[in-house]
Protein backbone atom coordinates (compact mmCIF):
# COMPACT_ATOMS: atom_id res chain seq x y z
CA UNK A 1 0.00 0.00 0.00
CA UNK A 2 2.85 2.35 0.63
CA UNK A 3 4.90 3.79 -2.16
CA UNK A 4 8.62 3.85 -1.58
CA UNK A 5 10.55 6.82 -2.90
CA UNK A 6 7.53 8.92 -3.56
CA UNK A 7 7.85 12.60 -4.20
CA UNK A 8 9.59 14.56 -1.50
CA UNK A 9 7.41 17.55 -2.30
CA UNK A 10 4.54 17.68 0.05
CA UNK A 11 1.76 19.43 -1.72
CA UNK A 12 -1.01 17.42 -0.26
CA UNK A 13 -0.46 14.40 -2.49
CA UNK A 14 -1.71 11.32 -0.84
CA UNK A 15 0.89 8.57 -0.89
CA UNK A 16 -1.94 6.09 -0.46
CA UNK A 17 -3.05 7.25 -3.88
CA UNK A 18 -6.58 7.57 -2.70
CA UNK A 19 -8.33 10.75 -3.67
CA UNK A 20 -11.21 10.15 -1.28
CA UNK A 21 -8.95 10.87 1.61
CA UNK A 22 -8.35 14.43 2.53
CA UNK A 23 -5.32 15.83 4.24
CA UNK A 24 -6.34 18.17 7.02
CA UNK A 25 -2.90 19.31 8.03
CA UNK A 26 0.60 18.36 6.98
CA UNK A 27 4.05 19.71 7.71
CA UNK A 28 7.60 18.59 8.30
CA UNK A 29 8.16 17.14 11.74
CA UNK A 30 10.09 14.33 13.39
CA UNK A 31 9.01 11.83 15.94
CA UNK A 32 10.30 11.66 19.47
CA UNK A 33 11.08 8.50 21.31
CA UNK A 34 10.09 8.23 24.91
CA UNK A 35 12.53 6.26 27.00
CA UNK A 36 11.98 6.26 30.69
CA UNK A 37 11.56 9.87 31.63
CA UNK A 38 13.37 11.42 28.69
CA UNK A 39 12.21 12.33 25.25
CA UNK A 40 14.76 11.89 22.51
CA UNK A 41 14.18 13.18 19.03
CA UNK A 42 14.29 10.59 16.29
CA UNK A 43 16.66 12.40 13.92
CA UNK A 44 15.03 11.17 10.76
CA UNK A 45 13.27 13.64 8.54
CA UNK A 46 9.58 13.13 8.56
CA UNK A 47 6.12 14.39 7.84
CA UNK A 48 3.42 14.85 10.40
CA UNK A 49 -0.10 14.91 9.14
CA UNK A 50 -3.71 14.36 9.98
CA UNK A 51 -5.95 12.90 7.32
CA UNK A 52 -9.60 12.10 7.08
CA UNK A 53 -10.40 8.94 5.19
CA UNK A 54 -13.48 8.06 3.18
CA UNK A 55 -15.18 6.80 6.32
CA UNK A 56 -14.59 10.21 7.91
CA UNK A 57 -12.24 8.62 10.37
CA UNK A 58 -9.30 10.79 11.27
CA UNK A 59 -5.81 9.43 11.37
CA UNK A 60 -2.71 10.93 12.87
CA UNK A 61 0.19 9.78 10.74
CA UNK A 62 3.92 10.10 10.66
CA UNK A 63 5.81 9.40 7.47
CA UNK A 64 9.52 8.82 7.04
CA UNK A 65 10.54 11.29 4.34
CA UNK A 66 13.49 9.20 3.19
CA UNK A 67 11.35 6.29 2.01
CA UNK A 68 7.77 7.54 2.17
CA UNK A 69 6.62 4.83 4.53
CA UNK A 70 3.85 5.61 6.95
CA UNK A 71 5.38 4.53 10.22
CA UNK A 72 2.72 5.72 12.60
CA UNK A 73 -0.97 5.57 11.89
CA UNK A 74 -3.44 6.13 14.69
CA UNK A 75 -7.16 6.59 14.62
CA UNK A 76 -8.57 9.35 16.72
CA UNK A 77 -11.89 8.11 17.99
CA UNK A 78 -11.66 10.01 21.19
CA UNK A 79 -10.69 13.62 21.57
CA UNK A 80 -7.06 14.42 21.26
CA UNK A 81 -5.39 17.41 22.87
CA UNK A 82 -2.40 19.20 21.51
CA UNK A 83 0.14 20.36 24.03
CA UNK A 84 3.32 22.20 23.52
CA UNK A 85 6.20 21.02 25.63
CA UNK A 86 7.46 24.21 27.20
CA UNK A 87 10.56 22.74 28.85
CA UNK A 88 12.04 21.46 25.63
CA UNK A 89 14.74 23.41 23.90
CA UNK A 90 13.54 22.22 20.53
CA UNK A 91 10.03 22.77 19.24
CA UNK A 92 8.37 19.71 20.67
CA UNK A 93 4.65 19.07 20.85
CA UNK A 94 2.52 16.34 22.25
CA UNK A 95 -0.75 14.81 21.12
CA UNK A 96 -2.58 13.33 24.04
CA UNK A 97 -5.68 11.18 23.67
CA UNK A 98 -8.14 12.25 26.33
CA UNK A 99 -9.13 8.71 27.14
CA UNK A 100 -5.43 8.21 27.96
CA UNK A 101 -5.17 5.53 25.33
CA UNK A 102 -2.31 7.17 23.49
CA UNK A 103 0.34 9.85 23.63
CA UNK A 104 2.67 10.90 20.79
CA UNK A 105 5.56 13.37 20.77
CA UNK A 106 6.84 15.20 17.68
CA UNK A 107 9.42 17.87 16.94
CA UNK A 108 9.07 20.58 14.35
CA UNK A 109 11.32 20.31 11.31
CA UNK A 110 9.95 23.30 9.45
CA UNK A 111 12.71 25.89 9.29
CA UNK A 112 10.49 28.85 10.04
CA UNK A 113 9.59 28.68 13.73
CA UNK A 114 7.17 31.54 13.34
CA UNK A 115 4.87 29.27 11.40
CA UNK A 116 4.56 26.84 14.34
CA UNK A 117 1.53 28.62 15.70
CA UNK A 118 -0.22 28.28 12.37
CA UNK A 119 0.50 24.59 12.33
CA UNK A 120 -0.78 24.15 15.85
CA UNK A 121 -3.96 25.96 14.90
CA UNK A 122 -4.41 23.67 11.93
CA UNK A 123 -3.86 20.61 14.11
CA UNK A 124 -6.51 21.78 16.55
CA UNK A 125 -8.90 22.40 13.69
CA UNK A 126 -8.18 19.01 12.24
CA UNK A 127 -8.66 17.27 15.54
CA UNK A 128 -11.66 19.15 16.80
CA UNK A 129 -13.51 19.91 13.59
CA UNK A 130 -13.45 22.94 11.28
CA UNK A 131 -15.50 25.06 13.70
CA UNK A 132 -12.58 25.10 16.07
CA UNK A 133 -10.64 27.17 13.63
CA UNK A 134 -13.39 29.23 12.11
CA UNK A 135 -14.87 30.53 15.29
CA UNK A 136 -11.87 30.56 17.51
CA UNK A 137 -8.60 32.32 17.46
CA UNK A 138 -5.38 30.35 17.93
CA UNK A 139 -5.17 28.28 21.04
CA UNK A 140 -3.47 29.11 24.30
CA UNK A 141 -0.42 27.00 23.83
CA UNK A 142 1.97 29.82 24.58
CA UNK A 143 1.13 31.53 27.86
CA UNK A 144 3.99 33.99 27.44
CA UNK A 145 1.84 35.91 25.02
CA UNK A 146 4.16 35.66 22.05
CA UNK A 147 1.14 35.13 19.83
CA UNK A 148 -0.42 38.39 18.88
CA UNK A 149 -3.94 37.05 18.49
CA UNK A 150 -6.17 36.81 21.57
CA UNK A 151 -5.93 33.41 23.17
CA UNK A 152 -8.92 31.19 23.71
CA UNK A 153 -9.33 29.49 27.04
CA UNK A 154 -8.68 25.75 27.22
CA UNK A 155 -12.28 25.29 28.34
CA UNK A 156 -13.54 26.90 25.17
CA UNK A 157 -11.32 24.59 23.19
CA UNK A 158 -12.84 21.57 24.79
CA UNK A 159 -16.46 22.56 24.45
CA UNK A 160 -15.86 23.40 20.86
CA UNK A 161 -15.02 19.86 19.94
CA UNK A 162 -18.53 18.74 20.87
CA UNK A 163 -20.11 18.16 17.51
CA UNK A 164 -17.32 16.10 16.01
CA UNK A 165 -16.56 14.03 19.08
CA UNK A 166 -16.66 10.39 18.19
CA UNK A 167 -17.68 7.91 20.87
CA UNK A 168 -14.53 6.64 22.49
CA UNK A 169 -15.76 3.03 22.42
CA UNK A 170 -14.67 1.25 19.31
CA UNK A 171 -17.62 -0.36 17.56
CA UNK A 172 -17.55 -3.68 15.79
CA UNK A 173 -18.11 -1.86 12.50
CA UNK A 174 -15.19 0.45 13.09
CA UNK A 175 -13.01 -2.50 13.99
CA UNK A 176 -14.06 -4.22 10.80
CA UNK A 177 -13.21 -1.13 8.84
CA UNK A 178 -9.82 -0.69 10.45
CA UNK A 179 -8.89 -4.28 9.77
CA UNK A 180 -9.96 -4.11 6.16
CA UNK A 181 -7.88 -1.04 5.52
CA UNK A 182 -4.86 -2.06 7.36
CA UNK A 183 -1.52 -2.58 5.81
CA UNK A 184 0.21 -5.23 7.87
CA UNK A 185 3.59 -4.09 6.57
CA UNK A 186 3.28 -0.75 8.31
CA UNK A 187 4.70 -0.76 11.78
CA UNK A 188 3.15 1.01 14.70
CA UNK A 189 -0.28 -0.48 14.16
CA UNK A 190 -2.63 -0.11 16.99
CA UNK A 191 -3.78 -3.71 17.04
CA UNK A 192 -3.17 -5.53 20.30
CA UNK A 193 -1.48 -8.93 20.29
CA UNK A 194 -3.15 -12.10 21.50
CA UNK A 195 -1.10 -11.85 24.67
CA UNK A 196 -2.45 -8.36 25.26
CA UNK A 197 -6.01 -9.41 24.46
CA UNK A 198 -5.79 -12.27 26.90
CA UNK A 199 -3.94 -10.51 29.68
CA UNK A 200 -5.57 -11.21 33.05
CA UNK A 201 -6.52 -7.53 33.43
CA UNK A 202 -8.50 -7.68 30.21
CA UNK A 203 -9.96 -11.13 30.20
CA UNK A 204 -10.72 -11.86 33.85
CA UNK A 205 -13.43 -9.18 34.15
CA UNK A 206 -14.94 -10.59 30.95
CA UNK A 207 -15.07 -14.09 32.35
CA UNK A 208 -17.04 -12.83 35.34
CA UNK A 209 -19.78 -11.72 32.99
CA UNK A 210 -22.57 -14.26 33.66
CA UNK A 211 -23.32 -14.83 29.98
CA UNK A 212 -19.69 -15.70 29.30
CA UNK A 213 -19.08 -17.53 32.54
CA UNK A 214 -21.82 -19.94 31.59
CA UNK A 215 -20.33 -20.71 28.18
CA UNK A 216 -16.86 -21.02 29.67
CA UNK A 217 -17.80 -24.43 30.99
CA UNK A 218 -17.55 -25.81 27.48
CA UNK A 219 -13.94 -24.56 27.26
CA UNK A 220 -12.46 -26.13 30.38
CA UNK A 221 -12.05 -29.38 28.48
CA UNK A 222 -9.19 -27.59 26.71
CA UNK A 223 -7.34 -26.92 29.96
CA UNK A 224 -5.07 -29.12 32.09
CA UNK A 225 -7.06 -31.49 34.27
CA UNK A 226 -6.22 -29.78 37.55
CA UNK A 227 -7.19 -26.37 36.24
CA UNK A 228 -10.84 -26.81 35.43
CA UNK A 229 -12.48 -25.09 38.37
CA UNK A 230 -13.34 -21.40 37.86
CA UNK A 231 -10.80 -20.33 40.51
CA UNK A 232 -8.12 -22.45 38.86
CA UNK A 233 -8.92 -20.93 35.46
CA UNK A 234 -8.39 -17.45 36.86
CA UNK A 235 -5.11 -18.49 38.43
CA UNK A 236 -4.01 -20.33 35.31
CA UNK A 237 -4.61 -17.32 33.08
CA UNK A 238 -2.22 -15.35 35.30
CA UNK A 239 0.36 -18.14 35.56
CA UNK A 240 3.76 -17.65 33.92
CA UNK A 241 3.38 -20.94 32.04
CA UNK A 242 0.17 -19.84 30.33
CA UNK A 243 1.47 -16.33 29.72
CA UNK A 244 4.67 -17.67 28.14
CA UNK A 245 2.81 -19.86 25.72
CA UNK A 246 0.40 -17.11 24.78
CA UNK A 247 3.33 -14.74 24.29
CA UNK A 248 4.99 -17.30 22.03
CA UNK A 249 1.73 -17.71 20.11
CA UNK A 250 1.48 -13.93 19.75
CA UNK A 251 4.96 -13.78 18.35
CA UNK A 252 4.23 -16.60 15.96
CA UNK A 253 1.07 -14.89 14.78
CA UNK A 254 2.91 -11.66 14.21
CA UNK A 255 5.64 -13.25 12.16
CA UNK A 256 3.87 -15.96 10.26
CA UNK A 257 0.99 -17.00 8.09
CA UNK A 258 -1.63 -18.07 10.53
CA UNK A 259 -4.20 -19.23 7.96
CA UNK A 260 -3.83 -22.94 8.39
CA UNK A 261 -3.75 -22.82 12.16
CA UNK A 262 -6.81 -20.56 12.32
CA UNK A 263 -8.80 -22.61 9.86
CA UNK A 264 -8.12 -25.73 11.93
CA UNK A 265 -10.11 -24.03 14.67
CA UNK A 266 -12.96 -23.07 12.39
CA UNK A 267 -11.82 -19.48 12.04
CA UNK A 268 -12.23 -18.41 8.46
CA UNK A 269 -8.93 -16.75 7.62
CA UNK A 270 -8.29 -15.47 4.11
CA UNK A 271 -5.04 -16.15 2.39
CA UNK A 272 -4.34 -12.45 1.80
CA UNK A 273 -4.47 -11.70 5.50
CA UNK A 274 -1.75 -12.52 7.92
CA UNK A 275 -1.16 -12.72 11.62
CA UNK A 276 -3.36 -10.76 13.99
CA UNK A 277 -5.33 -9.19 11.16
CA UNK A 278 -6.24 -12.62 9.87
CA UNK A 279 -7.24 -13.72 13.35
CA UNK A 280 -9.38 -10.68 14.10
CA UNK A 281 -10.97 -10.66 10.65
CA UNK A 282 -11.74 -14.33 11.02
CA UNK A 283 -13.26 -13.72 14.43
CA UNK A 284 -15.42 -10.92 13.07
CA UNK A 285 -16.67 -13.24 10.35
CA UNK A 286 -17.34 -15.83 13.00
CA UNK A 287 -19.31 -13.23 14.95
CA UNK A 288 -21.36 -12.30 11.88
CA UNK A 289 -21.97 -15.94 11.13
CA UNK A 290 -23.06 -16.88 14.66
CA UNK A 291 -25.26 -13.83 14.85
CA UNK A 292 -27.12 -14.78 11.71
CA UNK A 293 -27.48 -18.35 12.92
CA UNK A 294 -28.41 -17.41 16.41
CA UNK A 295 -29.82 -13.89 16.53
CA UNK A 296 -30.59 -13.92 20.24
CA UNK A 297 -26.89 -14.39 21.02
CA UNK A 298 -27.96 -15.82 24.32
CA UNK A 299 -27.24 -19.45 23.84
CA UNK A 300 -23.75 -20.76 24.25
CA UNK A 301 -22.27 -21.73 20.96
CA UNK A 302 -21.98 -25.27 19.94
CA UNK A 303 -18.25 -25.78 19.86
CA UNK A 304 -17.43 -28.60 17.54
Amino acid at each position, binding site marked *: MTTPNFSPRWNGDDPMGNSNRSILVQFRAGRCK*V*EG*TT*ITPDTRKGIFRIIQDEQHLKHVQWIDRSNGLIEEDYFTFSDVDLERIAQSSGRVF*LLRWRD*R*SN*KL*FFWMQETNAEKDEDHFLLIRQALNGPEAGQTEEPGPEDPSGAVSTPAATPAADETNSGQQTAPS*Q*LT*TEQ*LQYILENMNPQVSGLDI*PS*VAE*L*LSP*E*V*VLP*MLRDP*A*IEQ*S*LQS*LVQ*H*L*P*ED*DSSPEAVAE*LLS*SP*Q*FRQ*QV*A*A*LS*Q*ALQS*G*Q*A*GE*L*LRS*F*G*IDAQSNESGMVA*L*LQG*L*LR*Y*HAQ*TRSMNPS*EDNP*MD*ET
Partner: protein
Amino acid sequence: MADEGWCTIESDPGLFTGLLSDIGVKDVQVEELFSLDVESMNKLGEVFGVIFLFKWKVQDGDGDQIVNGTLMEPSSVPIYFANQVINNACATQAILSIVLNSPELDIGTELSEFKEFTKDFDPTMKGLAISNLKTVRTAHNSNSPNQHFVLEGMKKGEKDDDIYHFVSYIPHDGSIYELDGTKAGPIKRGEAGDNWIEACIPVIQSRMNEYSVNEVRFNVMAIVRNRENMYLKEIAKLEEEKKTKGETEASEIAARIAELQADLEAERVKRKIWKRENARRKHNYVPFVMELLKLLASKGELNKIIESAKAEKKKRMEASAKPES
Protein backbone atom coordinates in the same frame (compact mmCIF):
# COMPACT_ATOMS: atom_id res chain seq x y z
CA MET B 1 19.80 -32.38 10.58
CA ALA B 2 20.97 -31.08 13.91
CA ASP B 3 18.75 -28.13 13.31
CA GLU B 4 15.62 -30.21 13.45
CA GLY B 5 14.05 -28.06 16.08
CA TRP B 6 15.15 -27.53 19.62
CA CYS B 7 13.01 -24.91 21.24
CA THR B 8 14.16 -22.55 23.94
CA ILE B 9 13.10 -23.57 27.40
CA GLU B 10 13.01 -21.77 30.67
CA SER B 11 15.59 -22.54 33.31
CA ASP B 12 13.66 -23.69 36.29
CA PRO B 13 14.50 -26.39 38.85
CA GLY B 14 11.04 -27.93 38.57
CA LEU B 15 11.27 -28.08 34.80
CA PHE B 16 14.76 -29.64 34.90
CA THR B 17 13.64 -32.17 37.49
CA GLY B 18 10.75 -33.18 35.25
CA LEU B 19 13.10 -33.34 32.28
CA LEU B 20 15.52 -35.66 34.12
CA SER B 21 12.69 -37.99 34.95
CA ASP B 22 11.39 -37.85 31.37
CA ILE B 23 14.75 -38.89 29.94
CA GLY B 24 14.96 -41.80 32.33
CA VAL B 25 17.29 -40.60 35.08
CA LYS B 26 16.12 -41.94 38.41
CA ASP B 27 16.12 -40.66 41.96
CA VAL B 28 17.44 -37.15 41.32
CA GLN B 29 16.18 -33.61 41.36
CA VAL B 30 17.45 -30.14 40.61
CA GLU B 31 17.80 -27.49 43.27
CA GLU B 32 18.37 -23.84 42.64
CA LEU B 33 21.09 -22.17 44.71
CA PHE B 34 20.33 -18.66 45.77
CA SER B 35 23.54 -18.15 47.63
CA LEU B 36 27.02 -19.56 47.12
CA ASP B 37 27.93 -20.09 50.75
CA VAL B 38 29.31 -23.19 52.43
CA GLU B 39 26.21 -23.70 54.54
CA SER B 40 23.71 -23.80 51.69
CA MET B 41 26.08 -25.92 49.60
CA ASN B 42 26.45 -28.46 52.37
CA LYS B 43 22.70 -28.70 52.86
CA LEU B 44 22.41 -30.20 49.40
CA GLY B 45 23.54 -33.66 50.44
CA GLU B 46 24.89 -35.72 47.60
CA VAL B 47 25.60 -33.43 44.64
CA PHE B 48 26.34 -34.90 41.21
CA GLY B 49 27.11 -31.68 39.46
CA VAL B 50 26.47 -27.97 39.39
CA ILE B 51 25.04 -26.02 36.47
CA PHE B 52 26.08 -22.43 36.12
CA LEU B 53 23.92 -20.37 33.81
CA PHE B 54 24.47 -16.85 32.59
CA LYS B 55 23.34 -14.62 29.80
CA TRP B 56 25.81 -15.03 27.05
CA LYS B 57 27.38 -12.28 25.05
CA VAL B 58 29.09 -13.64 22.01
CA GLN B 59 32.05 -11.29 22.17
CA ASP B 60 33.13 -12.21 25.68
CA GLY B 61 32.27 -15.88 25.88
CA ASP B 62 34.28 -16.87 22.88
CA GLY B 63 37.75 -18.13 22.41
CA ASP B 64 39.77 -20.76 24.12
CA GLN B 65 41.62 -18.43 26.39
CA ILE B 66 41.20 -19.97 29.82
CA VAL B 67 41.67 -18.01 33.01
CA ASN B 68 42.46 -20.00 36.17
CA GLY B 69 42.27 -23.41 34.61
CA THR B 70 43.76 -25.95 32.24
CA LEU B 71 42.07 -26.91 29.02
CA MET B 72 42.35 -30.65 28.66
CA GLU B 73 42.65 -32.64 25.48
CA PRO B 74 39.26 -34.44 25.41
CA SER B 75 40.78 -37.84 24.76
CA SER B 76 43.20 -37.47 27.66
CA VAL B 77 40.57 -37.67 30.40
CA PRO B 78 37.83 -40.28 30.73
CA ILE B 79 35.10 -37.65 30.83
CA TYR B 80 32.12 -37.68 28.49
CA PHE B 81 32.57 -34.31 26.80
CA ALA B 82 30.36 -33.06 23.97
CA ASN B 83 30.50 -29.84 22.00
CA GLN B 84 27.41 -27.77 21.82
CA VAL B 85 26.07 -27.75 18.29
CA ILE B 86 22.79 -25.93 18.89
CA ASN B 87 22.18 -23.11 21.29
CA ASN B 88 18.68 -23.95 22.35
CA ALA B 89 19.71 -27.38 23.55
CA CYS B 90 22.32 -26.10 25.95
CA ALA B 91 20.32 -26.47 29.16
CA THR B 92 19.61 -30.08 28.39
CA GLN B 93 23.16 -30.63 27.27
CA ALA B 94 24.46 -29.24 30.57
CA ILE B 95 22.25 -31.68 32.42
CA LEU B 96 23.43 -34.56 30.26
CA SER B 97 27.07 -33.60 30.83
CA ILE B 98 26.50 -34.19 34.51
CA VAL B 99 24.41 -37.33 34.44
CA LEU B 100 26.54 -39.03 31.78
CA ASN B 101 29.55 -38.47 34.05
CA SER B 102 27.94 -39.72 37.25
CA PRO B 103 28.51 -43.51 37.31
CA GLU B 104 26.66 -43.77 40.63
CA LEU B 105 23.43 -42.62 38.98
CA ASP B 106 20.81 -44.84 37.37
CA ILE B 107 20.35 -43.13 34.02
CA GLY B 108 18.04 -45.73 32.48
CA THR B 109 18.63 -48.08 29.58
CA GLU B 110 18.32 -45.63 26.74
CA LEU B 111 20.87 -43.13 28.04
CA SER B 112 23.22 -45.95 29.13
CA GLU B 113 23.10 -47.44 25.66
CA PHE B 114 23.56 -44.03 24.09
CA LYS B 115 26.59 -43.33 26.26
CA GLU B 116 28.13 -46.67 25.43
CA PHE B 117 27.46 -46.24 21.71
CA THR B 118 28.90 -42.72 21.47
CA LYS B 119 31.74 -42.96 23.98
CA ASP B 120 34.46 -43.01 21.35
CA PHE B 121 33.03 -40.18 19.25
CA ASP B 122 34.92 -36.90 19.21
CA PRO B 123 33.26 -33.94 21.03
CA THR B 124 31.62 -32.59 17.88
CA MET B 125 30.16 -35.95 16.95
CA LYS B 126 28.96 -36.42 20.51
CA GLY B 127 27.23 -33.03 20.32
CA LEU B 128 25.58 -33.97 17.04
CA ALA B 129 24.50 -37.31 18.44
CA ILE B 130 22.93 -35.59 21.45
CA SER B 131 21.09 -33.14 19.25
CA ASN B 132 19.60 -36.07 17.37
CA LEU B 133 18.67 -38.07 20.43
CA LYS B 134 14.93 -38.22 19.99
CA THR B 135 13.80 -39.04 23.52
CA VAL B 136 15.85 -36.20 24.93
CA ARG B 137 14.72 -33.75 22.28
CA THR B 138 11.08 -34.67 22.75
CA ALA B 139 11.36 -34.31 26.52
CA HIS B 140 13.13 -30.99 26.10
CA ASN B 141 10.66 -29.58 23.59
CA SER B 142 7.62 -30.69 25.55
CA ASN B 143 8.50 -27.92 28.00
CA SER B 144 8.77 -25.17 25.45
CA PRO B 145 6.13 -22.45 25.18
CA ASN B 146 6.15 -22.64 21.39
CA GLN B 147 6.08 -26.39 20.90
CA HIS B 148 2.51 -26.40 19.62
CA PHE B 149 2.73 -24.12 16.67
CA VAL B 150 5.19 -23.49 13.95
CA LEU B 151 3.65 -21.16 11.43
CA GLU B 152 4.55 -20.91 7.84
CA GLY B 153 6.99 -18.06 7.28
CA MET B 154 7.70 -17.76 10.98
CA LYS B 155 11.06 -16.34 11.80
CA LYS B 156 13.41 -18.37 13.87
CA GLY B 157 13.74 -16.54 17.12
CA GLU B 158 17.25 -17.65 17.86
CA LYS B 159 19.17 -14.54 17.08
CA ASP B 160 17.34 -11.93 19.10
CA ASP B 161 16.39 -14.20 21.93
CA ASP B 162 18.37 -13.80 25.04
CA ILE B 163 21.05 -16.37 24.66
CA TYR B 164 21.75 -18.18 27.86
CA HIS B 165 24.79 -20.26 28.30
CA PHE B 166 25.09 -23.24 30.57
CA VAL B 167 28.30 -24.61 32.00
CA SER B 168 28.53 -27.71 34.15
CA TYR B 169 30.88 -28.53 37.01
CA ILE B 170 31.61 -32.07 38.03
CA PRO B 171 34.06 -33.78 40.38
CA HIS B 172 36.28 -36.26 38.64
CA ASP B 173 39.29 -38.15 39.96
CA GLY B 174 40.02 -35.62 42.73
CA SER B 175 39.62 -32.53 40.57
CA ILE B 176 36.85 -30.17 39.63
CA TYR B 177 36.15 -29.99 35.91
CA GLU B 178 34.22 -27.40 34.00
CA LEU B 179 32.33 -28.74 31.00
CA ASP B 180 31.53 -25.99 28.56
CA GLY B 181 30.24 -27.20 25.21
CA THR B 182 31.68 -24.18 23.42
CA LYS B 183 35.24 -25.07 24.48
CA ALA B 184 37.54 -27.63 22.91
CA GLY B 185 37.61 -29.87 25.93
CA PRO B 186 37.01 -30.18 29.67
CA ILE B 187 38.71 -27.54 31.80
CA LYS B 188 40.42 -28.56 35.00
CA ARG B 189 39.55 -25.89 37.53
CA GLY B 190 41.15 -27.08 40.73
CA GLU B 191 41.34 -29.76 43.39
CA ALA B 192 38.15 -31.30 44.67
CA GLY B 193 39.47 -32.01 48.16
CA ASP B 194 37.32 -33.87 50.70
CA ASN B 195 34.22 -31.88 49.91
CA TRP B 196 34.09 -31.08 46.22
CA ILE B 197 31.00 -28.94 46.46
CA GLU B 198 32.68 -26.63 48.95
CA ALA B 199 35.72 -26.45 46.71
CA CYS B 200 33.42 -25.57 43.86
CA ILE B 201 32.34 -22.26 45.41
CA PRO B 202 35.49 -20.24 44.61
CA VAL B 203 35.60 -21.82 41.15
CA ILE B 204 32.11 -20.61 40.25
CA GLN B 205 32.79 -17.33 41.98
CA SER B 206 35.85 -16.64 39.85
CA ARG B 207 33.93 -17.63 36.74
CA MET B 208 31.23 -15.15 37.71
CA ASN B 209 33.80 -12.44 38.15
CA GLU B 210 34.77 -12.81 34.52
CA TYR B 211 31.35 -11.52 33.59
CA SER B 212 30.01 -9.59 36.49
CA VAL B 213 30.57 -6.07 35.18
CA ASN B 214 27.37 -5.92 33.18
CA GLU B 215 25.95 -9.29 33.91
CA VAL B 216 23.43 -9.70 36.66
CA ARG B 217 21.56 -12.69 35.41
CA PHE B 218 23.30 -15.64 36.92
CA ASN B 219 21.69 -18.81 37.97
CA VAL B 220 23.25 -21.75 39.76
CA MET B 221 21.57 -25.10 40.02
CA ALA B 222 22.66 -28.44 41.42
CA ILE B 223 21.66 -31.96 40.47
CA VAL B 224 21.12 -33.74 43.77
CA ARG B 225 19.50 -36.89 45.13
CA ASN B 226 15.72 -36.96 45.24
CA ARG B 227 15.04 -35.21 48.55
CA GLU B 228 11.78 -36.95 49.26
CA ASN B 229 13.40 -40.37 49.09
CA MET B 230 16.39 -39.10 51.01
CA TYR B 231 14.24 -37.85 53.89
CA LEU B 232 12.18 -41.03 53.92
CA LYS B 233 15.32 -43.18 54.11
CA GLU B 234 16.79 -41.08 56.87
CA ILE B 235 13.58 -41.15 58.86
CA ALA B 236 13.39 -44.93 58.52
CA LYS B 237 17.00 -45.25 59.64
CA LEU B 238 16.41 -43.03 62.67
CA GLU B 239 13.25 -44.92 63.58
CA GLU B 240 15.30 -48.13 63.71
CA GLU B 241 18.02 -46.43 65.70
CA LYS B 242 15.50 -45.01 68.17
CA LYS B 243 14.33 -48.49 69.08
CA THR B 244 17.78 -49.49 70.30
CA LYS B 245 18.41 -46.38 72.42
CA GLY B 246 17.54 -45.33 75.94
CA GLU B 247 14.90 -42.79 76.80
CA THR B 248 16.91 -39.54 76.63
CA GLU B 249 18.65 -40.43 73.42
CA ALA B 250 15.41 -41.71 71.93
CA SER B 251 13.69 -38.41 72.56
CA GLU B 252 16.57 -36.57 70.87
CA ILE B 253 16.18 -38.85 67.89
CA ALA B 254 12.42 -38.27 67.90
CA ALA B 255 13.06 -34.53 67.71
CA ARG B 256 15.32 -35.04 64.69
CA ILE B 257 12.69 -37.22 63.08
CA ALA B 258 10.09 -34.49 63.59
CA GLU B 259 12.41 -32.01 61.89
CA LEU B 260 12.87 -34.36 58.96
CA GLN B 261 9.12 -34.91 58.76
CA ALA B 262 8.66 -31.16 58.39
CA ASP B 263 11.34 -31.05 55.67
CA LEU B 264 9.66 -33.96 53.95
CA GLU B 265 6.31 -32.20 54.05
CA ALA B 266 7.82 -29.02 52.59
CA GLU B 267 9.46 -31.08 49.86
CA ARG B 268 6.15 -32.72 49.00
CA VAL B 269 4.43 -29.36 48.72
CA LYS B 270 7.23 -28.15 46.43
CA ARG B 271 6.93 -31.27 44.29
CA LYS B 272 3.21 -30.75 43.98
CA ILE B 273 3.75 -27.20 42.75
CA TRP B 274 6.42 -28.40 40.31
CA LYS B 275 4.10 -31.08 39.03
CA ARG B 276 1.35 -28.57 38.40
CA GLU B 277 3.69 -26.09 36.75
CA ASN B 278 5.14 -28.81 34.54
CA ALA B 279 1.65 -29.90 33.51
CA ARG B 280 0.88 -26.28 32.68
CA ARG B 281 4.10 -25.96 30.71
CA LYS B 282 3.39 -29.02 28.63
CA HIS B 283 -0.24 -28.26 28.00
CA ASN B 284 -1.26 -26.97 24.60
CA TYR B 285 -3.33 -23.82 25.16
CA VAL B 286 -3.90 -23.01 21.51
CA PRO B 287 -7.34 -24.72 21.39
CA PHE B 288 -8.39 -22.96 24.59
CA VAL B 289 -7.17 -19.58 23.34
CA MET B 290 -8.92 -19.97 20.00
CA GLU B 291 -12.17 -21.19 21.52
CA LEU B 292 -12.11 -18.42 24.12
CA LEU B 293 -11.58 -15.80 21.42
CA LYS B 294 -14.40 -17.36 19.41
CA LEU B 295 -16.64 -17.29 22.44
CA LEU B 296 -15.86 -13.63 23.09
CA ALA B 297 -16.36 -12.85 19.40
CA SER B 298 -19.67 -14.67 19.26
CA LYS B 299 -20.88 -12.56 22.17
CA GLY B 300 -19.87 -9.42 20.29
CA GLU B 301 -17.18 -8.60 22.85
CA LEU B 302 -14.18 -8.51 20.54
CA ASN B 303 -14.18 -4.74 20.21
CA LYS B 304 -14.43 -4.42 23.99
CA ILE B 305 -11.43 -6.58 24.72
CA ILE B 306 -9.43 -4.73 22.07
CA GLU B 307 -10.28 -1.41 23.70
CA SER B 308 -9.53 -2.78 27.09
CA ALA B 309 -6.21 -4.27 25.95
CA LYS B 310 -5.22 -0.94 24.43
CA ALA B 311 -6.10 0.89 27.63
CA GLU B 312 -4.08 -1.60 29.69
CA LYS B 313 -1.11 -1.22 27.40
CA LYS B 314 -1.15 2.53 27.65
CA LYS B 315 -1.52 2.31 31.39
CA ARG B 316 1.58 0.15 31.53
CA MET B 317 3.49 2.47 29.23
CA GLU B 318 2.50 5.49 31.24
CA ALA B 319 3.47 3.81 34.46
CA SER B 320 6.95 3.12 33.12
CA ALA B 321 7.50 6.50 31.49
CA LYS B 322 6.82 9.96 32.70
CA PRO B 323 7.90 11.94 29.66
CA GLU B 324 7.23 15.54 30.71
CA SER B 325 10.58 16.29 32.24
